[in-house]
């Protein structure tokens, strides 16, 4: 208990006040990603799915941005765009002020040294036919030119130790490890290239509750010791609250709200954020039943089946505060007092539904 408290203190030391925000390490400007709809033979072509629409955010060096939102909101797509795993149709991605959205060849390889990933599913993210020593060592060979052998084994053992694993796992297959151990391996692999940004796409949601807190503590500790910057995607708002300096909320491809974590939790500016907060179950039967009743009233009063126009606010068919203007024009991104921004017509008028 005490050890972990100390860990969080280290973590808290890193959170800068708004007046002294460090320069952004990652910034994304007007990111747009589309997936072509499947072209069936003899069918007229259909418009592409807009997975990500004009998304902009930035993460100060050494901080964590929590990215939350429902499934299909485009969180993973944003992550994959930053990782250069998917083509982008518009916008730019800057790392340390440098535009990386169109790198290729040697420059892309160099970029891959700076940005690594930890995926949600530790069962499919590690090659099932490679031993752990190879999984972690491979990137050392690729990026640091250390051939397989005793020297590389030492480096691998060092990395494994940093994530709390003994060197005995080096000749195990992923199949022989537990989910939490695998996720530690995935983190060690990411650390192997000494990256500066780690994209964590729901790194704990496949893990057990007691293991989740171990991984979160590990990530916080690594951030404190190596000054890592995190983009932390999660479903779990309580988790997001713990780990993030800033929070960004996505809905159907749009970034609908962002801002300092405490502000977003205390004064959510977007109706969707409010709904998210209301829907997160708390481990307390009496309170949770109350919250559930309130939640049901809100979500039952809305009908997600109504089709929405392309120009409309994406939340219009579920929003309890919907107005005529919402169905006609997409709300612009506006500043919120207390930090951050929101896309909502009602925000200016100060309406809330609670």
């Amino acid at each position: 208990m005490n050890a972990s408290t100390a860990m969080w203190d280290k973590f808290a030391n890193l959170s800068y006040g708004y007046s002294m925000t460090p320069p952004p390490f990652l910034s994304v400007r007007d990111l747009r990603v589309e997936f072509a709809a499947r072209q069936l033979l003899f069918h007229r072509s259909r418009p592409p799915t807009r997975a990500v629409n004009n998304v902009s955010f930035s993460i100060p060096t050494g901080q964590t941005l929590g990215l939350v939102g429902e499934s299909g909101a485009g969180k993973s797509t944003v992550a994959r765009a930053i990782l250069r795993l998917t083509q982008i149709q518009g916008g730019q991605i800057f790392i340390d002020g440098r535009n990386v959205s169109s790198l290729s060849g040697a420059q892309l390889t160099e970029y891959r040294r700076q940005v690594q990933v930890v995926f949600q599913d530790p069962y499919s993210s590690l090659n099932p036919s490679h031993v752990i020593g190879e999984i972690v060592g491979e990137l050392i060979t690729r990026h640091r030119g250390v051939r397989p052998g005793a020297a590389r084994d030492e480096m691998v053992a060092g990395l494994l130790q940093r994530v709390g694993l003994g060197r005995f796992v080096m000749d195990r297959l992923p199949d022989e490890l537990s989910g939490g151990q695998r996720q530690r391996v995935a983190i060690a692999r990411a650390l192997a290239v000494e990256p500066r940004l780690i994209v964590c796409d729901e790194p704990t949601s496949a893990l057990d509750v007691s293991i989740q807190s171990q991984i979160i503590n590990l990530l916080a500790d690594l951030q404190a010791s190596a000054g890592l910057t995190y983009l932390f995607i999660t479903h779990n708002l309580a988790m997001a609250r713990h780990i993030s300096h800033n929070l960004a909320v996505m809905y159907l491809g749009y970034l609908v709200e962002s801002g300092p974590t405490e502000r977003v939790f205390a004064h959510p500016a977007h109706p969707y954020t409010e709904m998210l907060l209301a829907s997160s179950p708390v481990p307390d039967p009496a309170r949770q039943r109350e919250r559930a009743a309130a939640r049901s009233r809100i979500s039952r009063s809305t009908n997600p089946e109504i089709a929405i126009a392309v120009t409309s606010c994406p939340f219009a068919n579920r929003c309890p505060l919907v107005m005529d203007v919402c169905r006609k024009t997409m709300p612009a991104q506006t500043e919120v007092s207390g930090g951050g921004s929101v896309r909502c017509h009602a925000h200016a008028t100060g309406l809330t539904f609670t």
Partner: protein
Amino acid sequence: MTDAAKPRGVSGQARVWWRLRQQRLALIAAGYILLLYVVAIIGPWIAPYGPMTGDLRSTLQGPSIAHWLGTDHLGRDILSQIIYGTRLSMWAALEAVLIAIILGVPIGLLAGYVGGKLDRAVMWAVDLIFALPPIMVALGIIAVLGTTLDTVMAAVGFAFSTRFVRLTRGMTLTEREELYVDGARVGGLDVWTIVSHHILPNIAPALIAQAALQFGGVLLIEATLSFLGIGASLEQPSWGRLLSQSRDYMDAYPFLAIPSGAAIMLAVLAFNLLGDGLHTALGRDTIVAKRKTKRRKGDTETQRHGDGSNARSLIKTNMTALAIQGLQVRFPGAQNREIEIVCDVSLDLKSGETLGLVGESGSGKSMTALATLGLVPAPGWISNGSVQLGGRELTTLPDSELRRLRGKEMSIVFQDSFTSLNPSLTIETQLTDPLRAHLGLNSRQARERALELLALVQLPDPQRRLNEYPHQLSGGMAQRVGLARALACQPSVLIADEPTSALDVTVQGQILDLLKDAQRKFGMAILFITHDWGIVAELCDRVAVMYAGEIVETGKVDGVFAHPRHPYTRALLATLPGLDRTGTRSVPVIPGVVPPPQDWHKGCHFYPRCALAIPACNRNPVPLTSVGDDRQTRCVRAGEEGLW
């Protein structure tokens, strides 16, 4: 893989061995093939006569002591010819298959991985060649290159390489979607390293199985070509050549065709059996597990829908819908030991009631659910205990009856719908196929019903989604499709194995409301497996906490939350981050992990991680004891004053 499909601690090798041992026929076939190759190598030393030495005084004789299989029209010993023929036929087959693999696999890997124009060009060429029978392709090449045996087998190898291209490409396409491939790309590895080093080892088992099958095909073509007089020359006795010679003496001496014909037939059969056996035994664990899950899922698929009230008469509210007593599940472990992964689990579930089953992965929650349905994955089995559904004992029911029951009375939602959806079929097909098969709906009705179901689980834009494939869905959407399939059945007992853990909270809330509504309407009992204590708090009437194969605490939800009576429950509740717990930012942890089943202690299973452990805890198995109003706990210190 879910903890259900694979008990931890049963090693991968043990499983492969177990599966291989199940393949008796394949083993026999492998032995026979080995024998053929041994004969091929040592042939010249064991053959009683030379292949060409004939004795014109004894032509076309039947089997005798001197000539076990008789002689041919030139008085040559048939057994010796078959032995020499083995050498030739086996070598030729090996040559052709190797050529097919060397040509086909790399092309398939690249086409599948790189995709785009390269893939289209390759597939166009392959389809063209594939449309022709391999023997025609081979004949074409032979016409150009001549008819020595080597060119013939190269031609056959080329013709067969298209099969490897197709197979390799198909598997590469699937494998490319795996996260470890993305991981390799983010790692900056080049294309060739990714396909050869990462993808190939994972598809190799299937390729090996395929190669064994192709051997049979190649052998047949060699025989056919030799029969037609192409390939093996007159002086080289191959099996096909021998068979071809016997043709001329069909009337005078029909026996001549039997030895060579049998040699060909047996070899082809052996290769086919081996290929099938390897396919089953070597199939990568996850692949096998996926297939199993899918089948299980199919078993529980809807048999009826809509009113559901007629079948409901069986279950009356407040009747015990499901009663599990002393359930035990075991798996074979290393050194012929048995590993118990569910130990003495007892649960009662009344109609209209929701029981939460919580615990870490590997604690046996999912296996308990599967055992309840009679779906313990092989090689595990229910070693003890009873499961009663509406008063009817299930553990002794034959499989066929269980299957019917599963469709009608019980249904299960698995935690990972991605693995239960077929990547190559559209959502529409996967939703409507069972509806049509079980409910006899026509395709228009089935489509309408499918749309209703998708609307029920709030899948955005259901019309369009129907035509999409699983890989186009995000994780949460796939789970909703899986949920739609299970809810269509409106069962009397619904086992939900973490059905909402992949969903975002707003939709999770809606799904929970939906489950509550359905329960109110039909009075079904829900066994809700989860590790989210927030959901337990909201949804469940009672809760059972599992740890390392045992139920450690059970009781009414409010009581357990307010005053946990087991150290594990207490520690777990303390690790939960709260939405509103401001101030401290500490995340307390329970040290260590759930140990694998073979390491479970004889005494209390929580002993190694427990903060309250005393020596007495590790001596004997700890029984589940009653501690007050509808509460039971499994702890030797449960009765101590001041501790709780």
